[in-house]
């Protein structure tokens, strides 16, 4: 039994044309038992910055709160909104501080640069190693399935509506093949001047 799949969960984030999308499943469960279908694992950290935290649910909540702490102080001290790449550095630093007793989360960051609105996605392991690809990132208890779906469906330059479809389908069809993830999904599409969040109807099993 791996601690990272004790609660289960699935997150995917993708880059599109002048937009990014990030999606998560809604299941909260303890091993085989499902306890809630409204447990979102993606949090808004800024007007164009989203953070997904799959893994152990208690750490999902704690890491979210502690990062919000660091982020708020940063924005107060520097009188500006943080850039997604810098936020990734903050998350990485915080996780590595706990190198020998880590938080059991594998964060996913998706956002647009507050100045240039350039799309940014990245993910990292539980001790803060950043992976910053040009296309998509996945995390959770069904990464194998997620990688397969994303690799098949993603293409560069997707417009917001197409990106939504691609992201949603990749997530749903992947977590339908995982017992520990699913029970509903939420997809956020972040563009320069708006954020669209949609819940997806899925198999509830």
């Amino acid at each position, binding site marked *: 039994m791996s601690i990272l799949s004790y609660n289960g969960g699935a997150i995917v984030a993708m880059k599109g044309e002048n937009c990014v999308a990030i999606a998560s499943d809604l299941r909260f469960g303890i091993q085989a038992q499902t306890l809630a279908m409204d447990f979102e694992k993606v949090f808004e950290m800024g007007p164009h910055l989203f953070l997904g935290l799959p893994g152990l649910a208690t750490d999902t909540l704690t890491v979210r709160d502690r990062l919000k702490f660091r982020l708020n102080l940063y924005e107060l001290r520097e009188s500006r909104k943080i850039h997604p*790449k810098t936020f990734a550095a903050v998350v990485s*630093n915080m996780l590595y501080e706990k190198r020998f007793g880590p938080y059991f989360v594998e964060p996913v960051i998706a956002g647009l640069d507050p100045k240039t609105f350039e799309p940014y996605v990245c993910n990292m392991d539980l001790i803060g190693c950043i992976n910053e690809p040009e296309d998509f990132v996945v995390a959770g208890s069904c990464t194998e399935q997620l990688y397969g779906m994303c690799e098949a469906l993603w293409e560069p330059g997707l417009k917001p509506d197409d990106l939504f479809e691609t992201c949603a389908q990749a997530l749903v069809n992947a977590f339908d093949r995982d017992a520990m993830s699913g029970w509903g999904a939420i997809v956020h599409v972040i563009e320069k001047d708006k954020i669209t969040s949609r819940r997806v109807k899925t198999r509830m099993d």
Partner: protein
Amino acid sequence: MASERYSFSLTTFSPSGKLVQIEYALAAVEAGARSVGIKASNGVVIATEKVPKSILVDEHSVHRVEEVSKHIGMVYSGMGPDYRLLVKTARKKAQQYSLVYQEEIPTAQLVQRVASVMQEYTQSGGVRPFGVSLLICGWDNDRPYLFQCDPSGAYFAWKATAMGKNYNNGRTFLEKRYNEDLELDDAVHTAILTLKEGFEGQMTADNIEVGICDATGFRRLDPNSVKDYLANIP
């Protein structure tokens, strides 16, 4: 260190509401060698005079203009040893920031952190305020910055300023010559002219130090470059 023994601050209020130790620290600054800083449209220049105590002093071994990070430099007026500690502190804080945020520290952030250290020494047990005022120059956000940090921990953003001996004369001189469209070369020229006002003896590349900061970063000018600028001074 004394601060381990004393739990009370040595900097205390006078009945008139002044922190006399800070006033005395500012007097130490005012007695120190002159330094100037000028913001240009495309960079910042900082400069200072080096007054050797004797002709036997090896002028190029000890520097007053110091690099803090690739894009931030500083100079001072006042007590050299206190300055060197603050340079060390500033460099460390800049690196700490880079370690966490994976990017260069914004000049204003560095100034805030250094000034905060200087303030601590006015309110901690068994220590005295720093006997220096700092001029910190930097480049980020595609623009130049020039800040002064005082012994009290107060900091000011300047377009152009002078510190140290007869700083009022220097500031008046700068008020007449400063304009927003100065280019870096003109600013260096003006900075040297400002130092020359009230300079005792002949100004050479060996008894002044100049540092410039622009989009490509901060650097202290080598004596040959300083000589070129001096050649244009009447």
